[in-house]
């Protein structure tokens, strides 16, 4: 009777020790990711993921699962828009899965904020497209996937507060299939440039959901 108890205690001890060392490893990876984010990524993506230049997307508050998917696509060289090729294929090459997850977690936990607003007419048109789509152009509404406040979900990225020019560039990349995502190609293929600008201006102006 004593032997099973000893084995159980031993297993419990082993579990505690291995769990502690896993936490240690996670903590170490998280700390390393924070150093990489502050020391390297911030040069383009800005402090806490709030990039200055619209050439580089805002990462603050982005869903970690979406960021991991993108980092994996950069590393696999399957995301082919111009800045992905020029910048992120190289930057993602040395990242292992644990570091990608830790970086995504770091940016996911940063507080998002609203970007500059735009001309009221443009905002209204953008909001209309976002919520209702444009059946005349064959453009479905964005809200069902990206959420009512464009806060995104685990499967679909947060768009609220993103740089207007960055969003327009991505829509163009989806349209031309340079960034090859079937569902977004279908959405963007009928979208006119003026409407891209409208919806991007609206999305940039959105802050975090209350």
């Amino acid at each position, binding site marked *: 009777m004593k032997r099973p108890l000893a084995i159980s205690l031993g297993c419990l001890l082993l579990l505690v020790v291995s769990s502690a060392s896993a936490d240690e490893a996670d903590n170490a990876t998280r700390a390393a990711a*924070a150093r990489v984010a*502050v020391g390297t990524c*911030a040069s383009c993506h800005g*402090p806490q993921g709030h990039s200055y*230049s619209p*050439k580089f997307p805002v990462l603050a508050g982005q869903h970690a699962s979406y960021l991991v998917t993108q980092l994996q696509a950069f590393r696999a060289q399957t995301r082919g828009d111009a800045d992905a090729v020029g*910048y992120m294929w*190289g*930057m993602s*090459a040395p990242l292992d899965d644990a570091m990608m997850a830790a970086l995504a977690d770091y940016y996911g936990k940063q507080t998002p904020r609203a970007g500059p607003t735009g001309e009221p007419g443009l905002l209204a048109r953008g909001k209309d497209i976002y919520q209702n789509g444009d059946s005349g152009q064959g453009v479905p509404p964005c809200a069902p996937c990206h959420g009512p406040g464009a806060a995104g979900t685990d499967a679909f990225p947060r768009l609220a507060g993103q740089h207007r020019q960055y969003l327009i560039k991505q829509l163009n990349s989806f349209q031309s299939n340079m960034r090859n995502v079937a569902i977004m190609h279908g959405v963007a293929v009928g979208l006119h440039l003026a409407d891209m600008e409208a919806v991007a201006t609206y999305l940039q102006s959105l802050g975090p959901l209350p």
Partner: protein
Amino acid sequence: MQQTNRISRAWILQLLLTVAAAPQTAQAVPSFARQTGMACEACHTVFPELTHFGRMFKANAFTLDNLKQVRDIDATKQEMLSLANLPPLSVMIQISDTWLKSPLPDGTGGPGHSQTSTVGFPQQFSLFYAGKVAPHLGAMIQLTYANDSGTIGIDNTDLRFANQIVLPQETSLIYGISVNNNPTVQDLWNSTPAWGFPYAGTNAAVSPLAGTQIDGALAQDVAGISAYVMWNEALYGEFGAYRSAKQGVTNPITGAAGPLDGTVSNVISGAAPYGRVAYEYQWRRHDLELGVYGATFKLYPGGGTTGAPALLSGPANEFRDFAEDLQYQFIGDAHLFTVAATHIHESMRLDASFATGAVTNPTDTLTTTRVTATYYYRRKWGGTIGHFATTGSADAGLYPAGPAPGVITSANASPDTRGWIVEANYLPWLNTKLSLQYITYDQFNGGSGNYDGFGRNASGNGSTYLLLWLAF
């Protein structure tokens, strides 16, 4: 008096040679792209002008690498080795043709003229080691063959150590050390002399007599060490010192590489302090830098022979250089725009040369101002327009009137030179640049017409320069 003249001429000749040898080029190095896996545009607007990311890559000692590494660690998991599988080597070739507006007198002293066009094939050929050396150590070492010297020699070299810590509020503090051979070659902005416009220039035209010491006069002739910090990728401070490190100079007694003695010109007395402070502010696609930099060089004129000694002791010539600089960049996807400017003021206290009569004033001043504006469309088509001016006190010793046939002389002992530079560029690929550069002078060595006292006009020194610049 004869001795004085010899010293004066030797010193002036050395000054001329050093000014003429000042680096005309700055480089972009493809091995950095190979190391990071990132395209040139990550670090450069158009090579060699740096973007903010490029500045941070340099401040971090060129160590960002995305290549598979040969590694070693010790028992505490401390990284002991991190080597790329392939050495970060690059090649640069410049092929050029230069047309002078007015031909130069024939060097034989006869009535003819030299050719007006000079082909450089290559004008310059460089081999770089540029990249990571160890976990926090990187280097940019350039070995150059130039057609004017016809020899291979060490060019701009910058060995760096850097590390960074994350401060509270998640701000970064980069700290590092640079060991280099050209004051400002370690700088991060393209508004300071070593990496300022023009990034490439002819070596087959006439250069003005005057230039400040920090403006390339001591390039590859010194060794410096400086420590720097950069807070939050915005505030930069650096302090260091330079000693003479002459290339191709030997001790006349032993024939060894040193020690330097009075036969050598412009040897730094002790160590020359160098300092730099700059602040960079980013908003949207804009980036603005304001800064100051400077150094004080105490130089022994030297250049004496055993029959006419010029000792490396006693009074020296002191050059105090203080400069302001500014850089503004707008980096759009289609349109890129840069303004860069610097204003260098030099105060000279020429105790050594005045004592020997090599200069006419005990003190002189020299001020250089350069302003350039650059535009590129999609990093493919672009150009730069710039204005430059050097003004200062007249001194017949520094800027002599003779001898014939003139050209590099000044009839009124003035250093004043002003002019414009215009350059058009086409880059079929990011590492290939075709340039057409035009320089025109309103004033040269103190005058517009007959500036040299031998009938040559300032405008005659204008040049047109066609360049093919490859880096791979």
